[in-house]
């Protein structure tokens, strides 16, 4: 069935069963492959997108629940968002597969907290697994983006 979604500021019509998780609609129907499949059960965070600004796991969110909700994916950040610039500056990514989700969680954190403490960062980022273990640079890049945004 056709569902209307608001993704990255555009209204997108997609053909999908109502129980289809947002992730597969983004990837297979809307052509937005930046959000990744990692676990399918909301455990790893690779699929993280923003729903009305809040970080959500798109692998576990059926499209039927998203009428009128503004979805932002990694593609919607524009490529030179301060968080993305900080990621590049510190060469955070290794394999890179989890980084879209990491960045979306970081964007949501900084949107609500311009100067997060280490504990704030831990709390916001513990839902995003990075098997390459880029955690130390992820934390540093969040601090870097926060500093740049305050400057």
């Amino acid at each position, binding site marked *: 069935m056709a569902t209307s979604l608001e993704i990255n500021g555009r209204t997108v019509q997609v053909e999908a069963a109502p129980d289809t998780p947002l992730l597969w609609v983004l990837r297979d129907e809307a052509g937005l492959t930046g959000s990744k499949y990692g676990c399918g059960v909301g455990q790893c965070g690779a699929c993280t997108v923003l729903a009305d600004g809040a970080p959500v796991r798109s692998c576990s969110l059926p499209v039927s629940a998203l009428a009128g909700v503004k979805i932002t994916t990694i593609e919607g950040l524009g490529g030179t968002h301060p968080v993305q610039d900080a990621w590049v500056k510190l060469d955070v990514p290794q394999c*890179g597969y989890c980084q879209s989700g990491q960045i979306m969680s970081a964007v949501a954190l900084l949107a609500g907290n311009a100067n997060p403490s280490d504990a704030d960062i831990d709390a916001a980022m513990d839902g995003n697994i*990075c098997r390459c273990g880029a955690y130390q640079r992820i934390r540093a890049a969040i601090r870097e983006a926060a500093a740049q945004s305050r400057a």
Partner: protein
Amino acid sequence: MNAHVDTDAAQAGATRRELVVGTALVSGALLVGCSPADLLAVGAKTEVGAFGPFIRIAADGAVTVFNKHIEFGQGTHAGLAAIVAEELDADWSRVSVEQAPANAKLYANTLMGVQGTGGSTAIPNSWMQLRKAGAAARAMFTAAAAAAWKVPETELTVKDGVVSHAASGKSAGFGELLQAASAITPPSEPKLKSHADFTLIGTDRVRRKDSRAKSTGEARYTQDVKMEGLLTAVVAHAPRFGAKVSGFDDAEARKVAGVVDVIQIPTGVAVVARSTWAALQGRNALKVTWDEAKAEPLGSAEIEAKYAEWAAGKGALPEKLKWETFETRGDAAAAGDGEIFEATYDFPFLAHATMEPMNCVAQVGGKGGVKLTVASQSPTLDQLNTARIAMTLPGSVQIENLFAGGSFGRRANFQSDFVAECVHIAKKVGKGTPVKLVWTREDDMAAGYFRPLTHHRVKVRMDKDGFPAAWTHRVVTQSLMKGSPMAPKGIDTSTVEGAMGSPYLKATPAVDGQVLMPELGVPVLWWRSVGATHTAFVMEHTIDQLARKAGKDPVAYRLALFEKAGANRHIAVLKLAAEKAGWDTPAPAGVTRGVAVHESFGSVVAQIAEVRIVDGVPKVGRVVSAIDCGTAISPDQIAAQVEGGTCYGLSATLHDEMILKAGAVERRNFDTYPVLRNSEAPTVETHILPSTNAPSGVGEPGTPVIGPAVANAVLAATGKATLRLPMIRA
């Protein structure tokens, strides 16, 4: 494009003959000891430009370096390109990287003989090859400029892609000289720079080339492949290792909207659909019955118990299974006066658990030939295994190599398991239709290829000074190589590397090291740092316990043993780490320090971990690392690999454990298979020992050291040894 006949039958007929000839040639070549790479490349249609297989230069002077290795996070895009750029004197900001196609001859790993990435060899095997490629291309530009300007070539300089002649004031960029340079015959032995002349290698300018693409969602992984008419397949796999399909009912699966076919393949039953979600729903509706007659009967607990019995000399060994010696000197069983230390250590099966579950895109039976679009760690193996199924010449199998969402060893195996599965499906679908095989996390975790469950039993008799006088060591673990084309004639050293060759054993007068390699139905594989994942822990944690028994400082005790063994690189990194960590100064209140040193893949790493016990659980804070990896190409990426390798090793130290019950994988997702998360990740400092030796491995050596460093810090805090990993059992 490769020439392929149209009908399936004719194709099978024609190519089967070719394949038989090809296989016979390869076997023959192996018999007489020559490299099979030439023969494995038969059928390849790789275009090579004027500057050879690794370098392309555009009319505007921009340089492209072809990466024969996979980029799965370890930073080959930075390191390999920098080697070329250094000798070419290219403008680093105008150097980009493309993945090379599959070609066993042109793109062979010089340490393997065929194309593949592993053993932390990407930089070491490419070092001289890419320096020569860069230097030869540079010589072509200077020769062209010398001829055009009628000046001696020796008076020319090259900087940032511009050739200059100071006396005449003439200069020209690579783009301007391109046509003339392309016509020059490249020198076969071009002059290479000395280390003192390096301007890029070893500097902080050598940074990743892929960070922007990997921060915007643009980086392309196998999971992201889109093609006209692409179908997605998921497979219902056997619930236990060794079980086979006995029958299936696909009536309900075929009713799911979007499902186009249900196909039996050797590894299960595939549901092919127009979208991932439809394929998954189809699989949910599929009913498969399994023949479990030959399924693995044991669970991990029984395997662990059996291994411990065998190592203790209890219980009969299965037929044909026997202990094999990996290191022997003197009479380790002889009686002596000194104190006796005894311990056993247990290590579980481990999943690689890459962030991107295994997947592949294959096209078979079309006019374009057989093609894989996949993150391929071992292109030659993937070509061979694909060719066997698709009935074609291995060299003719095209591979478009993509970024991989991690591997840690998982993507390279002798069966090309997930690639072969995809090729089987694509062959049945036929007509060149692209088929993307998608594994869910559960499929990925249940497929095996684990780091083998391993048991160690150590007995050390100490001399009057507290140093080892006799060392008896037993290891029980599955072989990674048995039955493979790479099976060694003697023992499979990957099972004991790190114990075998240890400077501690070298410093011990009597040694008796033996390994037992049982066969099980559980597929096992190299896992980042391979044998060192367990041997480093056993050696380094044992040494700390011996030092404590002897009443000696763990660093001083190691230094004394390294002196005896002549292990100068170990001494250098240990001293550097100890100095940087302030080993001789008191640790912060509530913190204990643990040290470990290990050599793997040609590099030596020392780490000192600061640990605080919080609610009975070790919390690792600062980790000071020193690494000797020969010439450092990219200091920043070496640091990144040590940081990441440390996290990977710490995850296994604290959490990772694969549980099997009667040959079935119990833990299939991150809810039951916990891994290291951000709040547990340490802050790692990396100090690189200055060196002009050839570069050695970096991707793996950072992994095995953290485990024993943490265990030794816990030992210092609690007096208790860690005899089984992980420390925190879920």
